[in-house]
């Protein structure tokens, strides 16, 4: 068992997500940065979609009541074991009584903490991913106890090559309502730099507006990565916990790689869009 001494800012249990229920309004959820999360699982021999902890901006402090093997990937949160700095992207053996402290991020917005064997928690609609109204608890709290499945401790990767790289260029396809935009708006969209505003697992708001006459549409399907434009020219990029339908124009769509990249950006970071179709 692992005791949560301090939950950090926003730490959640995630796996690959909840599929097959979108038509009745259930979001996908799941790893925000799939590339980093999958790598964390691979390093310690887990299935790629195994449940783990997704950590946001400021990490938790955990006390181990047993021996475990873990791995940490994604943004650089300078993790420490018993006050000594440990390496990321490597299998780490921890013992009963050890304390893991994951600090504040120095690069990126999210890191992934995986345990060999995966986290023991109940599946809801086929997934362990935290989501309010689906899972009874949806973020880590002080005093919580995390249980880990038995692991066979095999297939460890001692030196992972696929490390995390921060990027500000996001690749997009044109969305269903792309042709609502006038030429000026299109030029602005691809020449201007944008700033990440308020964001969470559901959506990223951008600070700059685009001058436009875009109208609302009849409520239509959206996906993680759908970039919406409101009638007043605000830009919203939907992410893993987004609703299933929306009434704003869907002007662009991020590709899968850029959806992962976006999840590592923070408020105030700059981005540029690049059209790839």
């Amino acid at each position: 068992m692992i005791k949560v001494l301090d939950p950090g800012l926003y730490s959640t249990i995630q796996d690959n997500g909840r599929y097959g229920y979108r038509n009745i309004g259930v979001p996908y959820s799941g790893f925000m940065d799939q590339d980093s999360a999958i790598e964390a699982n691979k390093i310690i021999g887990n299935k790629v979609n195994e449940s783990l902890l997704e950590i946001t901006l400021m990490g938790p402090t955990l006390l181990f009541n047993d021996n475990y093997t873990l791995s940490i990937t994604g943004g650089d949160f300078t993790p420490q074991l018993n006050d000594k700095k440990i390496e990321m992207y490597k299998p780490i053996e921890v013992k009963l009584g050890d304390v893991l402290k994951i600090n504040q991020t120095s690069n990126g917005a999210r890191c992934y903490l995986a345990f060999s064997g995966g986290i023991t928690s109940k599946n809801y609609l086929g997934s362990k991913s935290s989501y309010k109204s689906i899972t009874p608890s949806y973020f880590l709290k002080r005093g919580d106890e995390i249980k880990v499945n038995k692991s066979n401790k095999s297939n460890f990767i001692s030196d992972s090559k696929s490390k995390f790289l921060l990027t500000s260029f996001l690749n997009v396809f044109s969305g269903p309502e792309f042709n609502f935009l006038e030429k000026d708006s299109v030029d602005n969209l691809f020449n201007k730099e944008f700033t990440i505003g308020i964001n969470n697992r559901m959506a990223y708001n951008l600070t700059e507006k685009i001058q436009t006459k875009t109208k609302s549409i009849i409520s239509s399907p959206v996906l993680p990565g759908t970039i919406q434009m409101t009638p007043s020219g605000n830009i919203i990029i939907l992410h893993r916990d987004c609703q299933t339908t929306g009434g704003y124009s869907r002007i662009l769509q991020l590709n899968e790689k850029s959806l992962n990249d976006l999840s590592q950006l923070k408020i105030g970071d700059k981005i540029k869009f690049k059209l790839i179709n």
Partner: protein
Amino acid sequence: MKYFIYNENSILITFNSEINSEFIYTISSLRTKIENDFKEYLIDTVQSINSLLIVYERNKISTYDFLTKVRSVKLETIIKKEKSKTWEIPVCYDTTYASDLEEFSKSKKISKNEVVQIHKSKIYDVMSMGFLPGFMYLGTTNFKLHCERKVKPSFKVRKGSIGLALNQTCIYPLDSPGGWHIIGLSPLEFFDLKSKPPCFASPGDKIKFFEISKSKFETMIKNKSLKPNFI
């Protein structure tokens, strides 16, 4: 019908037809057909009022091949095997539970009783689901009930609440903040993780409201008689 490649693993079909009850059911029949015929490739489908999004496994089939398969399904050949289901939903319109009925009736200059009579006299289509797990967009309402959303959304709308906004009515499946005008409350469970599937209705089905008294509402809550009938 327009086919649009949405991303690496999704295709959006948009329909230009006039939106009516018959057509919403046609989209749900197309969805069922695609779900059955292409099961091995499918991750998800999302039906909305005039479109259908199909999400597939890109490591099993290429976009081109999947698009060809989807295009080969012709609307004309879809046989609607069964009639769409109509679910009967009990609603208590008493102002104890209908927190916005009084104000709504005043703003529309029609009596509370008339709002209730108009609301329950029509059978509605489940046009799409979203906003919350199990949240149903039902349409369309009589023009006398058409309205903007509330200027100030409520911090907490009780689960089972029946709302009005634009030309639609809705059911809140869970406690949630919300901007629709609440004109009634149903004692049923609309999103239950213990049920399979968690919602009894899906887009393309129909909803018929019938009025129950405050005491009947309270008895139903007490007896946990929380499943609807369908005809």
